[in-house]
C-alpha cells in the first residue's frame, strides 16, 4: 500500500485516491487528568453527539477511561495509552488483570478491531501536556496522507497556536496508543496545561482544532481535492532521562532554565540541558543537533523521560481526493 502511494509521487500531477472516512472517533479522558479532552467529550455528549450521523460521516464520541476521569488521575492501575499493542489487545484477561488492559480490549472491540477492515477510519485522541508544545498531532506514520493533510489544514487555519506533526517510528503491532486502533489516527496533544485543571484558551484551541478536523473530513468525503505540498515532520530519535542518584534513583537535577519551555528549538551539542539542585549545569553530549519536545512532562518522570529528541525533515505530500468520486 505504501509503495503504491510512493509510486504516485513520481508524477506530481497525480492525485492520490483514498477511501472516504465514514466513521470518525473523538476520544477524551484516555488520561483522566488531562481535562481539555474530558470536558470536550462531555460537551459533545451533552449536545447528544454521542453518535451523530451527519452526511457524509459518523462521529463517535468516547470517554476512554471513565474510572480515571472520575478520580482525576492519569490512570488507576496502568497507563491505558500503553495498552494497545497487538500483544496486549490479545492478552487473556482474568480477575487480576488491571482495569486499563480490560478497558483497552473493550475500546478495541468498539473502535477496532485494530488492523481489520471494520476498524474506525480515523481516531482523534485528545491529550494535554505540561510541556510547551502548542498543538501536536502524534502518529506512527510519516506517510499517512490523511493525517498529514489534516495537519496542513490545521496549520493553515489555526492562528492562535503552533501546529506540528510528530512521528514515532513503531511498526503497527508495537504501536501502543489508542489512536493506533483506527485505520488512520493521531493523538492531538495540546500544552502547556497542568494536569487536573482546565485553561480556557487551551480548551478553545482544542475545540477549534477538532471542529477543523471534522470540517476537513466532511470536505474530503464530499469529493474535494486537497492540493499537495509539504509538511515538516519531527521523527522521534531517542529520549533523555533526568540525572539520578545511583542509589536512590531520585532525580538530582531539573531541566535547565535555558531549555525549559523551548520545545522544538534546536538543541546543539554542548547546550545546557539540566541544572542540578546543587547548581551545576549538565550539557547535551549528543553529536547531532536534535529537536527536543515533551520537555518536563510531569507524567514522564515515572517513565524515566525528561525530554524526547527528534530529527526534522520536510515530507512531500501528494494531492489527495476521496475515491468515492
Amino acid at each position, binding site marked *: 500500500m505504501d509503495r503504491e502511494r510512493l509510486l504516485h509521487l513520481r508524477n506530481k500531477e497525480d492525485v492520490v485516491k483514498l477511501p472516504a472516512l465514514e466513521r470518525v472517533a473523538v476520544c477524551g479522558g484516555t488520561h483522566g487528568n488531562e481535562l481539555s479532552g474530558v470536558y470536550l467529550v462531555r460537551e459533545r455528549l451533552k449536545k447528544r453527539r454521542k453518535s451523530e450521523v451527519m452526511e457524509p460521516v459518523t462521529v463517535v464520541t468516547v470517554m476512554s477511561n471513565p474510572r480515571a476521569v472520575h478520580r482525576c488521575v492519569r490512570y488507576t492501575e496502568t497507563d491505558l495509552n500503553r495498552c494497545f499493542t497487538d500483544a496486549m489487545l490479545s492478552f487473556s484477561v482474568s480477575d487480576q488483570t488491571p482495569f486499563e488492559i480490560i478497558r483497552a480490549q473493550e475500546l478495541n472491540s468498539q473502535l477496532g478491531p485494530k488492523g481489520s477492515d471494520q476498524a474506525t477510519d480515523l481516531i482523534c485522541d485528545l491529550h494535554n501536556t505540561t510541556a510547551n508544545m502548542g498543538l501536536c498531532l502524534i502518529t506512527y506514520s510519516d506517510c499517512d496522507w490523511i493525517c498529514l493533510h489534516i495537519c496542513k489544514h490545521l496549520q493553515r487555519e489555526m492562528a492562535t497556536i503552533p501546529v506540528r506533526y510528530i512521528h514515532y517510528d513503531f511498526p503497527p503491532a508495537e504501536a501502543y496508543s489508542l489512536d493506533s486502533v483506527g485505520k488512520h489516527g493521531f493523538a492531538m496533544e495540546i500544552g502547556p496545561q497542568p494536569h487536573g485543571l482546565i485553561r480556557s484558551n487551551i480548551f478553545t484551541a482544542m475545540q477549534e482544532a477538532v471542529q477543523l478536523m471534522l470540517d476537513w473530513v466532511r470536505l474530503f468525503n464530499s469529493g474535494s481535492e486537497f492540493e499537495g505540498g509539504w509538511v515538516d515532520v519531527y521523527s522521534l530519535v531517542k529520549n533523555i532521562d533526568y540525572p539520578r542518584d545511583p542509589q536512590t534513583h531520585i532525580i538530582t537535577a531539573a531541566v535547565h532554565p535555558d531549555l*525549559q519551555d523551548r520545545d522544538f528549538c534546536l538543541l546543539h551539542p554542548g547546550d545546557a540541558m539540566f541544572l542540578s539542585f546543587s547548581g551545576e549545569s549538565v550539557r547535551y553530549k549528543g553529536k547531532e543537533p536534535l529537536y527536543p519536545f515533551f520537555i518536563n512532562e510531569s507524567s514522564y518522570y515515572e517513565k524515566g523521560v525528561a525530554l524526547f529528541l527528534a530529527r526534522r525533515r520536510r515530507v512531500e505530500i501528494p494531492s489527495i481526493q476521496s475515491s468515492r468520486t
Partner: protein
Amino acid sequence: MREGRGGVSAGSKVCSRLLLEEFRKTQARKTVSQHCSAEMEVVTLPVLHRMAVCGGTHGDEMTGVFLVPELERQRREKGDGIWPIALTTVLSNPRAIKECKRYVEKDLNRCFTSALLSSSITDSTPYEIQRAQELNSLLGPKETEDAIDIICDLHNTTANMGLTVISYSFSNWVCLHLFKYLKEKVTTVPVRLMLLDIPICDAYSLESVSKYGISLEAGPQPQGVVRADIFNFMKEAVNAVMDWIKIFNSGQVIEGGEVESYMVEKSIDYPRDPETQRPSAAVHPQLQDQDFCLLKPGDPMFLTFSGETVKYEGEPRHPIFINEAAYYEKGIAFHLAQKKNITIPSIQAKKD
C-alpha cells in the same frame, strides 16, 4: 484545654489561658489592625533560636520536595555552621511524596487547627491527622513557649502567583519584616504578601505551629513538575530568610515602614452544572494568570464551555490563587482579597 493522645505534652500542658496571655504579652504580640496607627517606636523581640524548613506538605508540590534534601546535602557537606540558626529540615508528608500526590487520605495542610491537633487517634483516623500531631510534637506544640520560632513551609501553585508569602494576621512583626526583606532581596519574580484573618486556634496550616510561621508559595508550576527557575528563586528566598535572621539576631535595629498586604476575604467557586456538580465553565482567558490584579464589577470572570461569559459582580477586589488545580475539589476558582497597607515598627532583637 486540649486532651487526647498526641496532643500537648505534659510539660507544656499548662496551655492555660493565663500562660497564653503571659506568653503573648512578653512576645509583644498584637493584632495587625491595632498597630496600624502605632507610633514608630522600636519594638524589642527575643532572639530567634530555632527554625524549620518544611517541604512536601503537599506531596506533589515538587520545589519543596527537592529543596529540603538539597539543604540536608549542604548540611552534610559543610556542617551546621553554614546557617545562622539551628535548622530542622522536614519532609512533612512522606507517604504523599512517595506517591507524588497532594495527600493520601486528607489534606495535611488543613490538619493543624487546635481541635484536630488534640483529637483522639483511632485505627480509622486519617493518616494526615496522625502525621499532623507528630509534626506538632516535633515542631510545637502549637501555642506554647516550646514551639519552634520559625517555620518556613514550601509550596507550589498552578496559579501565576510568583513568590507569595502567606501568613496569618495574628502573626507578629517578624513575619511582616521577613516579607519586607524578601521583597527587597528577591528580584527575579514579583513578591507579595497574602494574609489570612483567622484566629490562631482555627489556623489550619503547618506554619501556624510555630511562633512566627510563613508559607512560601511559588508558581506557576504544574503539580508533579520541578522547574529550575522556580527552584532557584525559592532557594534564594530561603537563603534570604536566613540572612534576615542573622541580621535580626545580631541586635541591629531593623527599620520599619509600610508593607502592602492582600487580606483574603472570600472565595469564588466555578459555575457548576446543577445535576452533576461539575464545573460548567473555566476561568475566563482575560482573568487567567492575572493574580493580584484588580477585578472590577463587570470584568469577565468565567467562560462557559458553550461560550458564554460570566461577569464579576462585587466590590473591586484582588483575585489570588486563580485556577489552582488542587482547589477544584474544594469549590474554589480563586480567592478575593483586599489590599491593605500596614505600618510596621522598627524591631530589634533583645539578647537573652
